């Protein structure tokens, strides 16, 4: 078996295929289909300091080759995660990224402190959720806010810190630089693109939240471009995501600059999506006699 391991901020992932926050809950459902320990890492559902019920349904609608969602960070809260979900994830052998979404800057720090004492492998700062009234994307579109949150979290934990960026910005490179200089270990992108669908008969939005985040194959080219922008702007490793559904997509994302990739919406369409990508990626590396580091950032630009 070909060695597909990659290193991100001192953490070894057995392969570059991770699953994106919010599309995989805490892995229980997918572990019924295949061992989730076969993935590079699992990013948890976005966690808040206190339990959140999320937005009212409808929360999802199909779009041309993708979907809009407005879940709104429904989660059991950081304490329940540490008590009930993390032990399961570690017991089945998953490498765990805890995705945290503070309502305030200090909530990020408080959660990072709690996670510092746990078996979580990495912490991902969700400064890019488009579906919440306070925090979320409002942080991720400002270099100052990203910088403030990242440096505060940096002081609160020894765990590697990933900053997950929003595509809903003018210059994603500027935001990535702000995260890098504030002490981030890794950048992940893209979160979803803010969007809307309307029922033309009722003239009402399909989602109860009015707007939602667009994901799926439709956003893939945007994600590839943004990963490239960030790759050129910072020296940090990148976890690239946004519409990946095949091993070819994963390779493309890595050529653009990603050290690892994340599979999100594809899990909703096919429970085996991420696992299939792991296997097909192994075939790709074997057949071409390559290793992940040979292709990361290897784009030959015009």
């Amino acid at each position, binding site marked *: 078996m070909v060695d597909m391991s990659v290193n991100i901020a001192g953490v070894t992932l057995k392969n570059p295929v991770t699953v994106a926050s*919010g*599309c*995989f*809950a805490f892995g*229980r*459902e*997918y572990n*019924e*289909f295949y061992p989730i320990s076969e993935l590079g890492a699992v990013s948890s*559902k976005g966690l808040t300091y206190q339990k959140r*019920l*999320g937005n009212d*349904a*409808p*929360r*999802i*609608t*199909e*779009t041309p*080759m*993708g*979907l809009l*969602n407005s*879940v709104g960070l*429904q989660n059991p809260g950081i304490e329940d995660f540490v008590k009930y979900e993390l032990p399961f994830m570690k017991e089945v052998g998953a490498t765990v990224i805890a995705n945290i979404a503070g309502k305030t800057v200090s909530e990020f720090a408080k959660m990072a402190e709690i996670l510092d004492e746990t078996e979580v492998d990495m912490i991902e700062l969700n400064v890019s959720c488009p579906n919440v009234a306070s925090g979320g994307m409002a942080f991720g579109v400002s270099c100052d806010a990203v910088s403030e949150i990242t440096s505060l979290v940096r002081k609160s934990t020894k765990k590697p810190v990933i900053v997950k960026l929003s595509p809903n910005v003018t210059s994603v490179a500027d935001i990535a630089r702000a995260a890098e200089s504030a002490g981030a270990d890794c950048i992940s992108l893209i979160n979803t693109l803010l969007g809307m669908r309307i029922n033309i008969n009722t003239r009402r939005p399909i989602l109860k939240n009015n707007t939602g985040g667009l994901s*799926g*194959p439709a956003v893939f080219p945007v994600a590839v471009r943004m990963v490239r922008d960030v790759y050129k702007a910072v020296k940090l490793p990148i976890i690239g995501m946004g519409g990946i559904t095949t091993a070819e997509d994963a390779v493309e994302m890595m050529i653009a600059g990603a050290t690892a990739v994340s599979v999100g*919406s594809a*899990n*909703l*369409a*096919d*429970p*085996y999506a991420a696992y299939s990508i792991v296997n097909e990626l192994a075939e790709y590396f074997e057949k071409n006699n390559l290793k992940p580091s040979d292709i990361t950032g290897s784009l030959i630009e015009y």
Partner: protein
Amino acid sequence: MDKFVDIAPIVEIRELRDGLFLLSFESESIAKNAKCGQFVHIKCSEALFLRRPISIYNVEGAVVTVIFEVRGKGTKALSEMSAGTLLNVLGPLGIGYSLSEYSGKKVWLIGGGIGIFPLYMAAREYKGNSKVILGFKSRAFVAADKDFAFTGAETHVVTDDGSYGSKGFVTDKFKELLEGDKPDAVFACGPMAMLKGVYEICKENGIDCEVSLEERMGCGLGACLCCVTPVKVADTTENLTVCKHGPVFKGKEVF
């Protein structure tokens, strides 16, 4: 493991009435595990990203049958498939009706519109021990009533305009039947307003009530948390997924 992704050949597809289709596919793994009230999540087209959830109508041997109405692009594409086509099906999913819990007891089945179909396996199970009330807008919308009657269950059909069966809503017929008899439980499926009406009558009469809900779905497995509905749990309300915690809930938990 009790749920599977199967590439299942379609053995039959036909239009029952305008826009209403019966589709049968062969899948031993799904058929063996399917229970009344559960659903399958079907990839309807390569051009569409998400699957479409459709409740199970019947299981015979290795053949699973669903009945669906063309509502949008997904169901339209599904209706255009033909026998022999390989269908990508995930299932069986969700929690169905508590069929065995009420075994030997008296259960009435109340369905409205295309909500009647998930109740068919219960009628087959309870047979003459059960009463069935099926409600439709008008004669043009009536389907499968003879199949329900054929199970031996006492089957009543009502239409809003009286063009078939008796005139009125299922709740009218339910109240009428309660004058001479009373079930231990009611299993219901249909529009929300109907379910609420049925539940209120059950509550007044001390009858257990289980209802099947619908919501726009993503993964179908309980992971993406898109298809939630508020459910009373202990003394609080939780947003539970219709796909994993439902689609069948106790009436008293959701109304």
